[in-house]
């Protein structure tokens, strides 16, 4: 199914099941003439949560947006290098960025529900992706997504209420449900709890742990405790002297936090820099 959705020419672009879900090779992003990130090489394994941490301005979000071609929407951003999704180069000419975004979903820093009902927010992705569902099928899909996003019990009686009537934490879980509804393979989260209170944050972290078997999750955070709590792997990014974001360390979260190899990582996670 993923093959069909992503590849315009399936005989040329065939996703492989082996290996990393996403592999990044020599990735760099330029805004105008200035590099924001450079020389990023990284693999994301299936059904793992990878946290990307680093001080503000190190290019974490820029990097994340490369993985579903959201940087295409920023006119001055230019992406160099390669990003492979299950073996397919998503920056190849024959790949449609719109299709990439249906397999690599995204949740943003601030909850951004659409100004419509709770139900229509979740069904939006299904609607725009052009698959026709009966009313009942649509309801089941929406319900599934809301259950996975741990929001169903709170909203099941008011699916027609406007999404803005929900609290901030609920809105963010709605945005996660919305992303899950289109049945993606990878989910990118860009500091999803930065605007939320601790209880809402805990709920989201918990739900990420619950769904991580089905999805490959990549979460950008500048909250190191969060990275330690939720992730299996951690990537540390840091700006160099020219303020170009670089990947300085990557490994299992436990190792990064207990036994970092790079001095800068140690300084960062112990709070000496950043």
């Amino acid at each position: 199914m993923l093959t069909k959705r992503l590849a315009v020419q399936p005989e040329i672009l065939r996703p492989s099941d082996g290996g990393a879900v996403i592999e990044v090779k020599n990735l760099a992003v330029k805004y105008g003439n200035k590099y924001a990130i450079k020389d990023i090489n990284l693999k994301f394994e299936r059904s793992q949560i990878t946290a990307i941490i680093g001080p503000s301005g190190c290019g974490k979000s820029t990097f994340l947006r490369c993985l579903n071609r959201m940087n295409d929407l920023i006119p001055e951003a230019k992406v160099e290098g390669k990003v492979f999704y299950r073996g397919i180069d998503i920056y190849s000419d024959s790949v449609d960025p719109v299709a990439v975004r249906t397999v690599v979903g995204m949740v943003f820093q601030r909850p951004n529900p659409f100004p419509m009902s709770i139900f229509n927010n979740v069904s939006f992705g299904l609607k725009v992706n052009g698959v026709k569902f009966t009313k009942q099928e649509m309801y089941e899909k929406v319900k599934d997504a809301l259950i996975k996003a741990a929001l169903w019990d709170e909203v099941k009686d008011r699916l027609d209420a406007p999404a803005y009537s929900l609290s901030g934490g609920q809105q963010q879980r709605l945005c996660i449900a919305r992303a899950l509804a289109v049945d993606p393979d990878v989910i990118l989260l860009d500091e999803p709890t930065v605007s939320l209170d601790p209880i809402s944050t805990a709920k989201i972290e918990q739900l990420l742990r619950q769904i991580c078997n089905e999805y490959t999750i990549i979460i950008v955070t500048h909250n190191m405790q969060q990275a330690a709590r939720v992730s299996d792997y951690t990537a540390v990014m840091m700006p160099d002297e020219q303020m170009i974001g670089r990947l300085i360390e990557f490994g299992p979260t436990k190792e990064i936090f207990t036994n970092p190899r790079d001095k800068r990582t140690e300084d960062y996670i112990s709070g000496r820099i950043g």
Partner: protein
Amino acid sequence: MAGTVLEVKVLSRRDRLKKILDIATPVILAIAVFIAISAVAALLITVVYQGAGRLSLNLILEYPSANPAEAGMRSAFLGSFWTVGLSALVSMPLGIATGLYLSEWSSWRRFRRFVEFNIANLAGVPSIIFGLVGLSLLTYGLGWGRSIIAGAFTLGIMTLPLVTVSAAEAVKTVPEALKHGAYALGATKLQVTRYIILPRSLPMMMTGAILAISRAIGEAAPILIISGLLFIRRDPVSIFDRFTVMPLQIFNWVSRPQVAFQELASAAIIVLLMLLLALNASAIAIRYRFQKRLVL
């Protein structure tokens, strides 16, 4: 023991001048407001004083006549209705499409700047110029004659900058976060426009369009060029009929010496003003409803 010392600062000339200005500024501003309001009030009072007695349904039900007791502006009222209504059908789709293009779809920045610059200029062109363009291009060029459709297109092109600018501004108010949220779900640009941008910006576009309509309804100059001063005693039945509009009827009556016609002109102005008021009120109502929905 040292107590509190009250510091007395001697005011310099500069300080005193500042103080005077502080007091004088609101007075000056209030005078400006008063002058503006009294100008409008003077207009309204004279018009109502002169015309109130002539206000009756006959004013819009009767055809013009040489006898002021029977005269009405039925043909002008219908003419205005047709031309202005059709002009909205010209300016709204074109203006909204151009606004969408300028704010969302164009990727060619220099061309966009060029178009924006020219639209801004177009908004400042005297309306009579649009009348001349309509006359040469539509009346003679396309052979539409001095018809309703020629008048409607002229008014439509005249109000196009207004509709375009408000549509472009409306599109710009749609938050990036909403658009990106939709893109991240695999929506195409057309879908983002259709499901996110348009529903969100349509009320503001409508407000701009209504203001454009209320400008078109009061225009006399371009219509005078297209249709000429006419004495029409029948209802328009097709868009290729000749026509006249309310401002021209008012102009016609004002230019007559008899007091009775002056009074008729004032009554017609009252009708026109009430129409404008209703249009502007509906624009405000739409905006208000839109804002309330955003708070939800």
